[in-house]
């Protein structure tokens, strides 16, 4: 197994709609300090700060990495901000791994943050998101993110023959997992009918099939495998990263429902890690919409018989391949820049057996997968994490 970097620290804030007067700078500080404390490293040990934040529209702060370097006590470290829509956080993790692999850095802080919920009205954020696909065609036409995801899911559902009821099951399961996650935005014990009867946004998507806008931050500390503090020698390793792209316009794709970029990203990551999808024990998957989770499981090669596997409970918290134990975007929430970082942090904590106790699988986990994308899977980024001793 390739050991590209160790995840020596992992933390996140609560994801929610903040009304307590705290700012994204507070949340970034909270997540970073907790991750640094876990790593046992000092501020001066951090060679690079990589910030994931989707949009200056949310923060009203161009060049957020510079201001956060100051807040976090990292002046002197190399700084950059990484952006790739919804994939921003995972791409920032990749940038951190690459900084270590290049020899430029021994310890990197990756901080993802966005005030997606509280700083702008929801209608304004919805409008901005409409311009995050192809602004010149889809955006000008007024198609929202939900509209584009709905059309993509319709193409997928028609191809593989899957019903709308699966969407209700996904939303229920992810939010039920979130019940045991104290950081979650939407812990809910939904009845299926409540989901199926929620307001129709863009058929087949109803309000409860959609992830919320959230505020929050997540941080990880990445260390060179030769520089891991002795107390953290068992820290999980990042063993494979993969990223790929697809046409932004659904109509330019061979099949509007297939997440081709995700499939390619997964192949890269698995090849690097020396694993196959069947080796993955647990995964955090990008469920911006309930159907996107199904499209992701298909593209990642984690299920050939989706409806049957879902029905059999294979992806449930006690199933053979738990998906989105955190609750995912649907349950834990979606502060965009923080998502990918939080997914990777979750995977690292799960591999260490240090996740929220009610969600921590009792069996030994060897490999975990964090899957993120931007657009309707226009920009895909996946990361495979493995036990320090895994071969």
């Amino acid at each position, binding site marked *: 197994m390739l050991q590209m970097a160790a995840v020596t620290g992992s933390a996140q804030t609560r994801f929610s709609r903040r009304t307590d*007067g705290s700012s994204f700078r507070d949340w970034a500080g909270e997540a970073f300090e907790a991750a640094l404390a876990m790593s046992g490293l000092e501020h001066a040990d951090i060679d690079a700060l990589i910030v994931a934040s989707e949009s200056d529209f949310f923060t*009203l702060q161009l060049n957020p990495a510079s201001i956060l370097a100051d807040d976090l006590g990292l002046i002197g470290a190399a700084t950059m901000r990484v952006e790739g829509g919804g994939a921003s956080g995972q791409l920032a993790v990749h940038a951190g791994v690459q900084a270590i692999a290049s020899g430029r850095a021994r310890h990197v802080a990756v901080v993802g943050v966005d005030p997606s919920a509280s700083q702008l009205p929801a209608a304004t954020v919805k409008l901005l998101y409409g311009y995050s696909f192809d602004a*010149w*065609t*889809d955006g*000008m*036409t*007024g*198609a*929202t993110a*939900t*509209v*584009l995801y*709905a*059309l993509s899911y*319709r*193409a997928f559902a*028609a191809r593989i023959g899957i019903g709308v009821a699966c969407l209700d099951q996904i939303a229920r399961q992810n939010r039920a997992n979130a019940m045991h996650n104290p950081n979650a935005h939407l812990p809910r014990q939904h009845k299926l009918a409540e989901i199926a009867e929620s*307001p*129709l*946004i*863009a*058929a*087949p*998507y109803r309000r409860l099939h959609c992830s919320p806008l959230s505020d929050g931050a997540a941080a990880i500390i990445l260390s060179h495998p030769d520089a891991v503090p002795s107390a953290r020698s068992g820290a999980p390793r990042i063993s494979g990263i993969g990223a790929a792209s697809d046409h932004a*316009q*659904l*109509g*330019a794709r061979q099949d*509007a429902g297939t997440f081709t970029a995700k499939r390619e990203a997964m192949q890269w990551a698995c090849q690097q890690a020396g694993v196959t999808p069947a080796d993955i024990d647990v995964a955090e998957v990008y469920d911006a919409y309930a159907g996107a989770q199904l499209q992701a499981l298909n593209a990642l090669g984690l299920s050939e018989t989706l409806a049957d596997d879902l029905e059999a409970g294979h992806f449930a918290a006690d199933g053979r391949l738990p998906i989105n134990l955190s609750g995912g975007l649907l349950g834990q929430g979606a502060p965009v820049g923080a998502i990918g970082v939080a997914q990777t942090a979750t995977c690292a904590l799960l591999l260490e057996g240090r996740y929220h106790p009610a969600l921590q699988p009792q069996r030994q986990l060897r490999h975990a997968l964090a899957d993120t994308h931007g657009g309707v899977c226009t920009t895909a980024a996946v990361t495979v994490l493995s036990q320090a001793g895994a071969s």
Partner: protein
Amino acid sequence: MISYELTLPYSLAPGWLAPYVEGLQKGRAMGRSCTKCGTVSFPPQRRCQCGNPDAKWVRLSGKASIELRTDGSDGAFGLVQFEGAANRAVTRLEGFSPDQSTGQLIVPPTDVPALVLAPSKPRSTS
């Protein structure tokens, strides 16, 4: 809380998309025809799927068939196939009943160069 309002009066240059944008404002579907393989794209793709970046602008009929559609509080939209184009487009659907599956590009209701489709045949009044 600091209340702060920002207005952003963009002047967006259409660049290579200029014929497309000007066409839309008149309700015309201007596509790109590859100078090597003849493949026509609408919405226009800068580079043909064969890899050739050179193309000439051609006017399509603007007729389209709806392949997939979605309706709800976010509006009515479709993934549609324009006559003569190799790719498909996401368009807004104006005034379609559930059984109507063909439409025509129309002049967008606002100044924004939007892809808007209206039914080919008038809606039944019964």
